[in-house]
């Protein structure tokens, strides 16, 4: 008989990394062995498996497995794994980490990944403590027990992880202890075949810290304790899974259900609307061939002096859109240097709304309209606010039904149009801004009718182009007649 020199599981372990750092009797090593057995038995494509760990004793496991392995930051392996999986959905992504890493510092990522049903397999070693740093209290330390930061006994209630994960929407949730090698292995194989967020909690022996100080000095004591204090159920209720000293540790598969995972949900929502069947972060989606485009040469603009325009009104009057359309007309179609800014306040909507536009045939450096040459004012409140900016020879455009200009220099040129009334007559007060645009176009030299119309077409909601162009023409005609009336 020939004696094989190689351990049968060696092809999955990095031999050069041995001996590992794990203590005698620690449950992480045995659970890692269960994982390796599961990967062997399940005949998975090992090149397509990534293992992600956080920080702590369990975090070192990614470094011992002969797979693509990522030893990341404390608490973040699930977020890191999310990036891997969504970039290349062909990968099978396993997160192997500890209770402190996953449920304390990484707790937010744990619950959200479960909620999203991201297809990753999480193996959570729960040894009731922070082993790497010397046995401190964790979110899973059972009440009343010792840790190096709860030397009088823990007075917190620990997380019931299966219950938490079930509540968050994880689609596979199981718990075993590190004494249940076969169950762990089988659960890992199940999780590997399960599509969706899978969570396997392994209650694990830490004889060196938690065990030693809680009268379970050796690995053997702990395994014995686990075997004697475990209750395995076929359909355990996660509400009963809180770990308390003196009551059995409830084990089993709490949830195993089919639900579309994150990428399925994404596809269901987007594919039809966009005509794209796959979404992934690595750019390997074939897009329909595009026609070649060239940038048309921009003709140099006519010489004009730098002009500052202030647009002001109430939220809902379309002041921002008016400025944007004017900006597009002057910039894209006339070739002027044009800067458009909106005034931002803390409120999301409502109240006064204003925007600024600077148009010049030369480069514009300063972005803000600090001394407007022209003001377009659509509401009395806005007039009050910006009256201070109206100087000798200013030009103002107003909605004449809504704005009564008072106390302004005689030299100010006022152009008045009943824009809102005209818009209402057309059927929708909403287009008062476009009526004003037509009026402005007729009177000022900054963009032609064609440029303004093109800018309107590209800026208004699809299907409303004709209506908006009608409003534009109304305002424009009013402007053309204006001087003659």
């Amino acid at each position, binding site marked *: 008989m020939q004696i094989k020199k190689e351990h049968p599981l060696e092809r999955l372990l990095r031999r050069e990394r041995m001996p590992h750092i794990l203590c005698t009797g620690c449950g992480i090593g045995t659970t890692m062995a269960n994982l390796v057995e599961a990967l062997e038995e399940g005949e998975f494509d090992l090149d397509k498996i990534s293992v992600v760990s956080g920080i702590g004793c369990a975090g070192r496991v990614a470094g011992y497995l002969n797979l*693509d392995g990522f030893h990341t930051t404390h608490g973040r392996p699930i977020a890191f794994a999310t990036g*891997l999986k*969504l970039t290349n959905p062909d990968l099978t992504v396993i997160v192997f980490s500890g209770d402190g890493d996953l449920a304390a510092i990484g707790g937010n990522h744990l619950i959200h990944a479960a909620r999203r049903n991201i297809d990753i397999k999480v193996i959570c070693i729960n040894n009731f403590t922070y082993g790497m740093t010397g046995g401190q209290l964790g979110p899973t330390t059972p009440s009343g027990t010792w840790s190096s930061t709860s030397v009088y006994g823990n007075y917190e209630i620990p997380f019931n992880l299966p219950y938490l994960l079930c509540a968050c929407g994880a689609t596979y949730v199981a718990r075993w202890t590190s004494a249940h090698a076969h169950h762990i292995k089988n659960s890992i194989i199940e999780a590997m075949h399960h599509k969706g967020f899978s969570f396997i909690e392994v209650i694990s022996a830490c004889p060196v810290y938690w065990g030693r100080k809680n009268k379970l000095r050796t690995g053997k004591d702990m395994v014995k304790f686990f075997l004697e204090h475990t209750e395995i159920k076929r359909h355990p209720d996660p509400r009963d899974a809180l770990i308390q000293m003196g009551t059995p540790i409830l084990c089993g598969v709490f949830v195993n259900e089919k639900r579309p995972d994150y990428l399925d949900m994404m596809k269901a929502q987007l594919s039809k609307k966009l005509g794209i069947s796959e979404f992934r972060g690595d750019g390997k989606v074939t897009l329909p061939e595009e026609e070649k485009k060239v940038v048309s040469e921009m003709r140099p603009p006519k010489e004009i002096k730098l002009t500052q325009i202030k647009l002001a009104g109430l939220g809902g009057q379309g002041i921002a859109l008016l400025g944007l359309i004017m900006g597009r007309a002057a910039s894209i179609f006339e070739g002027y240097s044009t800067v458009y800014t909106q005034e931002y306040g803390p409120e999301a909507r409502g109240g006064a709304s204003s925007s600024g536009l600077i148009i010049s045939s030369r480069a514009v450096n300063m*972005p803000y309209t600090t001394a407007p040459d022209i003001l377009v004012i659509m509401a009395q409140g806005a007039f009050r606010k910006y009256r201070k900016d109206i100087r000798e020879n200013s030009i103002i455009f107003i909605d004449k039904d809504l704005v009564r200009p008072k106390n302004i220099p005689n030299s100010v040129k006022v152009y008045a149009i009943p824009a809102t009334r005209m818009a209402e007559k057309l059927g929708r007060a909403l287009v008062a801004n476009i009526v004003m645009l037509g009026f402005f176009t007729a009177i000022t030299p900054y963009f032609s009718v064609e440029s303004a119309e093109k800018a309107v077409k590209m800026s208004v909601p699809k299907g409303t182009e004709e209506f908006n162009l009608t409003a534009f023409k109304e305002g424009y005609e009013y402007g053309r007649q204006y001087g003659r009336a």
Partner: protein
Amino acid sequence: MAKDVLTGIHFLSGNYACVEGAIAAGCRFYAGYPITPSNEIAERMSVRLPQVGGVYIQMEDELASMAALVGASWAGAKPMTATSGPGFSLMQENIGLAAMMETPCVVVDVMRGSPSTGLPTAVGQADVMQARWGSHGDYEIIALSPSSPQESFDFTIKAFNLAERWRVPAIVLLDEVVGHMWERVVIPPKEEIRLVFRKRPSKPREEFLLYKADKDLVPEMPIAGEGYRFHTTGLTHNIKGYPDTTARAQAPLVRRLVDKIRKNAEKIIDIEEHYIEDAEVILISYGISYRVCQYVLDKVRSDGLKVGIIKLNTIWPFPERRIQELAKQIRAFIVVEINLGQIVFEVERVAHGQCETILVPHAGGHIHDPEDIYNVIKDLF
């Protein structure tokens, strides 16, 4: 059908232009968390990425966003996130991881008034040192600072190229004003946009060493799932990528992380100079403040004052050699930035007493009054 490169003439905000730059650069993964004044980047990404088969995911916080970026990059993505000061602080943890694992990724920080929650809707430029030193330890990153929507488009592409070329996080330091102002943006034809992808393994798995660097100090980068079965870690590691937490392993690793940028700095640095030849005084600025300086410069030049200007397109690595050279030729540098002194200390350090270094500070919330800059210049003549 939606396009990946929107060739043509557009009128865009700096934030929107940044998104188009990213998509043109091949970004197909975005993970982020909403924060003013960067929201328009997330919003447009959530529209544009699905159109090109990419993934937009809104994470639970900025810690997760940044961690997801590092994971995505190792799976072959050119990933991006965008944030502002408070979120940028949270991202520092995994920016450090990206630096340590040598992971290409792009982080956009639309700077607002600070510290803490500060001025959510108003401008600041006080994150430039955080961009450089924000995560703990010795490492180097690259940071760029656009001063217009056009540059926001151009520099975002550049940031991706630099991140891929040097395998570092590249930070686009937009500011609230540039992010929110709209200007013409010319997007060239797709075939005219030069794109860089990380160096790929030239050796089979058996001979491949994850962190064995070439002459340029940058190692080749495999991608998860290709069969390289590599291991990488945020711990100090050897050239195999295995943890080696000794002083002996620390020195060559950290030195290389730093040197790959420092020794290649001249290939990375991008500055613009105007009116330098006869200048007695030189303005140094970046982002929106550069435009205010340019406005002032036009005035003082027409007054006949010999003033020049330097625009920092890349802020990090800092253009030490050039500043040092100029310090010997001029009377003073005037640094204009919306903070109470950050880049000015770099200038001062490099000028090393060869000429005066003057700061025109601004606490944030608004751009400088040109008058304040003008007066400082006038005092020197």
